[in-house]
């Protein structure tokens, strides 16, 4: 049986959706669905949920590279079979959760995980840095300005103990997106690493008509920087193409999304910006956008030391100075952004001053400010 290329429609099944969630539940989850009373974090990476039935669910959270092989998944399954009656889950930040229904089962599970050559670091709960939400980068996408998995590995290696321990004032949510499309919640993260281009698109006149619809390319530019134009190719033929007014370009890459003949990535032009102070939860204050504090750092694989250093510096400065429960953005707002730049030792540039739409709302319209080393 199986798929028959001669008869592709035979027995075709469509629109059946995903497996039903209930069938996937561990028994203790099924039995206590909607009955949970409270939780505790008994040690880093280990949650204990207690039900009104008295039942307990102990969750061991484990870091994951997200980009994982089926071999790795099979190993996860081995662990789950051994300790968790064949069930496991992934979190919304790409960590793996092993759940057991009794306190006594926790230590054997932890021991097992620890025995597996560092492939299953326990952590990511409570006041810590959890996994870095990230995207494809050079492993799969066509528009990235930086890599994803590589940068994440470099950063997580450096701040590893912030994952395995709970030494921070609050949760700190890190995210990476490899281009301005910002697949993920980079725009609302405590610390965000963002791939940015800085050179306007080239136009591949030889290929453009074959690769894309010109009107779509023209329409794609939010700033009207792309105009139709006739171009003479090397062989003398005139073709319809487009031209880019580089001075109006803000390097958003939307043209390349719509038209493969307009690449913008560049070894020197593309790199990383750092944004901080976003959040999504409604705790105390509502959700907030991350704000750009470093407009550009170079792409320096395999370890991106400049990026790693800035992230660590911000993390450490926040950790040392914030109040309990205070997210990065709440802290920066409390001390004032001018102080943030000063104590994080981040040079201030005009790139952090908004000049896009709604920009006026971010300008300082009060005489209230703190003197910092910026003022001579």
């Amino acid at each position, binding site marked *: 049986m199986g*798929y028959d290329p001669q008869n592709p429609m035979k*027995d075709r*099944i*469509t*629109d*059946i*959706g*995903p*497996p039903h*969630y209930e069938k996937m539940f*561990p028994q203790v*989850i099924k039995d206590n*669905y*909607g009955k*949970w009373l*409270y939780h505790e*974090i008994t040690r880093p990476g280990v949650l204990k949920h207690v039900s009104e039935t008295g039942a307990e*669910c102990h969750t061991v959270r484990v870091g*994951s*590279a997200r*980009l*994982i*092989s*089926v*071999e790795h998944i099979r190993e*996860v*399954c081995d662990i789950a079979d051994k300790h968790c009656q064949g069930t*496991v*889950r*992934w*979190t919304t930040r*790409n960590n793996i959760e092993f759940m057991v229904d009794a306190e006594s089962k926790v230590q054997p599970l932890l021991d097992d995980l620890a025995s597996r050559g560092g492939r*299953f*670091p326990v952590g990511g709960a*409570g*006041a810590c840095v959890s996994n870095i939400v990230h995207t494809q980068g050079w492993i*799969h*996408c*066509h528009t990235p300005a930086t*890599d994803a998995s*590589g940068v994440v*590995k*470099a950063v997580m*290696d450096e701040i590893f103990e912030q*994952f395995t321990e*709970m030494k921070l004032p*609050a949760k700190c949510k890190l995210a990476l997106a490899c281009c301005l*499309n*910002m697949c993920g*919640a980079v*725009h609302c993260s405590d610390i965000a690493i963002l791939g940015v281009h800085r050179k306007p698109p080239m136009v591949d006149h030889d290929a453009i008509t074959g690769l894309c619809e010109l009107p779509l390319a023209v329409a794609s530019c939010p700033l009207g920087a792309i105009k139709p134009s006739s171009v003479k190719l090397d062989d003398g033929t005139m073709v319809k193409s487009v031209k880019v007014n580089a001075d109006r370009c803000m390097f958003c890459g939307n043209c390349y999304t719509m038209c493969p003949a307009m690449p913008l*990535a560049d070894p020197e032009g593309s790199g990383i910006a750092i944004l901080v102070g976003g959040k*999504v939860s*409604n*705790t105390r204050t509502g*959700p907030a*956008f991350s704000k750009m504090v470093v407009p550009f750092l170079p792409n320096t*694989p395999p370890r991106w030391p400049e990026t790693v250093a800035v992230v660590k510096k911000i993390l450490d400065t926040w950790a040392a100075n914030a109040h309990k*429960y205070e997210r990065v953005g709440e802290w920066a707002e409390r001390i004032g952004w001018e102080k943030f730049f000063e104590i994080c030792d981040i040079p201030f540039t005009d790139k952090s001053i908004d000049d896009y*739409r709604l920009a006026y709302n971010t300008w300082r319209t009060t005489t209230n400010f703190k003197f910092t080393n910026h003022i001579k």
Partner: protein
Amino acid sequence: MSKHETPLMDELENGPWPSFVSDLKRQAEKSPQCWDIIGQMELSFKDRMTHWKHGGIVGVFGYGGGIIGRYSDVPDQFPGVAHFHTVRLNQPSSKFYRTDLLRKLCDLWEKRGSGMTNMHGSTGDLILLGTKTEELEPLFYDLTHDLQWDLGGSGSNLRTPECCVGKARCEWSCFDTQALCYGLTMKYQDEIHRPAFPYKFKIKFSGCANDCVSALARADLSVIGTWRDNIRINQAEVKNYLNGASKSGGGAIPSRADKFNIKAEVLDLCPTGCMWMEGDTLKIDDAECTRCMHCLNVMPKALRPGVEQGASIMMGAKAPILEGAQLGTMIIPFLKVDPETEFEEVVEIIEKCWDYWMEHGKNRERLGETMQRIGLPTFLRVMEIEPLPQHIKEPRSNPYVFWREEEVEGGWQRDIKEFRKKHAQ
């Protein structure tokens, strides 16, 4: 498909965080094309650039979503990844898995693809990373027949809905996130698999205002649990926090846990200042509470959401391309979310919104951008929702009201000649 020299990649096998490079190498033993993944990545590390090209029309027959086409721009050097399409599988709600199913999937993907995955994609899909065009149909066949598992969304479709762990393992969920997520996923299979809209549309569900699925940042429509009566207080447990028997935040912030200071940690941080102590009894003026979750987070044993539970519906969140990012805007402050009625109320809102957006949204215009373009008052009118102060953070400060003719006594038609009789030029 041979092993390449990859010194830069190899460097990433060092360090404590799980290494995707080591993992790739392990998989390469079974899936040799993984050597070419590593090889092309190495080249990207050297060139500081991606080596992938656009995708185009690849997909499974009759579906407009679920597959992202991808081709190498250096296929001669790395023939194993000349085609490298991804397949988005619709994850089970909240991403619980049984290992038997997962193992079947592993086998299938080792057979039909690179053996590499993302667990999970940012939208929530289980992503199978990298296969050839000719493998797509057989993969899809086996997936649906053997695993009873379907693809998720991409393109101008409804994207795979996603929810937080909710009632499955959380004490705060104010509605059944899995049931709603699954229910709508099944109801809208057509919209997920075939393009229906001017652009992508994302729906996410969080059981409470902590929003563990980041819906408010990422979903065109988000459903966020809340309650409308009073926070349930267990005063005995309050005392346990005061006397140190229970740890604040369930022990989440041990480094700063000297002695619990209910004033500094709860009362003073309550954004509305609606909490106070009378002796060691905690009081809350619930009419002033905005259900921000802070106090429940700090004292999970003592405080629980009220019993009259439901959800707020927010619309229009998205990433910055192109007008700038938007957070979800309050559209329905409170709604019962009732599985009994097959979530009728939610469905009605979704479809009213789609009907309008399908007709009036511009190409590649996200819902939030449409809302910005037409304005919130008009959007509410379209949605037949009464304007409420809860829709806004603050009233308008500019005086530019677009009155409609029917609202103004005597209408707009006036006679300049009549006017001039009283007012000479």
